[in-house]
């Protein structure tokens, strides 16, 4: 019972953080909209480019030089998610060396993957 109550209060707090945060945003932006002067002109709504006439638009095919990094990022982010529960439990009394060594092997495989990607030139800006 005690645990259940505690959990439910926390879920309410998190949910309210999101609801009140959104409400605060809407409220602030509405207040600013009500208070601000409105004098539209065609110049004000053009794209800002330091004062010169804009040439071409920004929604083009934009080359992300870090594309391969982003792929590796997905892999390593998931690795981290696996590491966290392990970090909490592996030191507890009664949990032997097996759990520790298993995770070392897991880290070693991923480190090997990183070393391979590095050697193949994936960690290079292009």
């Amino acid at each position, binding site marked *: 019972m005690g645990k259940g109550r*505690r959990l439910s*209060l*926390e879920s*309410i*707090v*998190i949910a*309210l*953080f*999101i609801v*009140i*945060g*959104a409400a*605060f*945003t*809407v409220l*602030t*932006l509405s*207040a*600013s*909209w009500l*208070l*601000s*002067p409105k*004098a*539209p002109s065609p110049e004000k*709504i*053009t*794209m*800002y*480019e330091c004062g010169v006439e804009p040439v071409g*638009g*920004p929604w083009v095919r*934009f080359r*992300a*030089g*870090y594309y391969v*990094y*982003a792929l*590796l*990022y997905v892999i390593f*982010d998931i690795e*981290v998610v696996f*590491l*966290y529960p392990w*970090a*909490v*439990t*592996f*030191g*507890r009394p009664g949990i032997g*060396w097996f759990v*520790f060594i298993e*995770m070392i092997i897991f*880290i070693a495989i*991923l*480190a090997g993957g*990183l070393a391979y990607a*590095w050697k193949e030139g994936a*960690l290079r*800006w292009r």
Partner: protein
Amino acid sequence: MSPVLIATLRVLAAVGLMLLNGVVLIYMLRKVLGHLHVRLGPTELGPAGMFQTLADVVKLLTKEDPTPGMVDRVLYFLAPLIVFVPSLAAYAALPFSSSIIAADLDAGLLFTFAILSLVTLGIFAAGWASYNKWSLLGAMRSIAQQVTYEVPLLLAALPPVMIAGSMNLADIVRAQQGSVWFIVPCFPAFLFFLVAGLIEANQTPFDMSEAESELVAGFATEYASMKFGLLFLSEFSNTFVFSALMVTLFFGGWTLPFVPDALLSGVGGAVVFMIKTYLVIAVLMWVRGTLPRVRIDQLLSLGWKVLLPATLVWIVITGLAVKLGPALIGGVS
């Protein structure tokens, strides 16, 4: 009191703290940077220019806010909300003292990191929706920063979790109460956390998504008025949250050595926590006023070729130490 009322009061307190942090931090940044540049910073409004930020809030609220003609309207208006809400929710799990926590989550550390990583989505939405070349460049850079910092930051926060045996932020502080602050056994992890956190908090030398001197205002170029205000309030607030996490993980949270816990369990602890956090922020501002910005490819190299391997090695070393004996790392059982 009903749980909903308690929860509402806690969230409103967090909103108040966030606004207060914004006002104080902007003033502090101007003063600290000013003195680092051998000038005075704001001086005109109030004693030592103290009311300057308040005047700026009024200015932001009453400024004209023209919507550029070509923007993606839905995303453009949604982006400040996507940035602001996670920044606020990141206060949920911070342990200001053993009794002042909005939500005492068992996975508090993971929750804070997870919710903070949503901010980047909002920043990218803002940059893409703005239909502006500066904004797009800033948005692409902010994704590059996310790709760089997140894995090393999470890995650098792992050694304290391993020693404390918990992801609950209050429990991590309590684990330091009985022994030493985790900066002593985890000093390298602290350094990695500091560097990765500077990237996370968009702080110079890693502020390339904003980069006033090259990209106008980066992802926020087309934002004016309070929409801009909210984007920057979130940014200052993220700096605070990162510093608070650092205090929690490495500097003993609300505790002080040789001071009995009874004195620090309530408001006293929260005062200690805030002072420590502001000291960390002062150091971040000092870094900001001292170092030049790095290039984006240098950032990626730093993250993947230095921080990531180093944090992995340090995790293995910490793991061995935790396994081999509590005596090795300051008597934590």
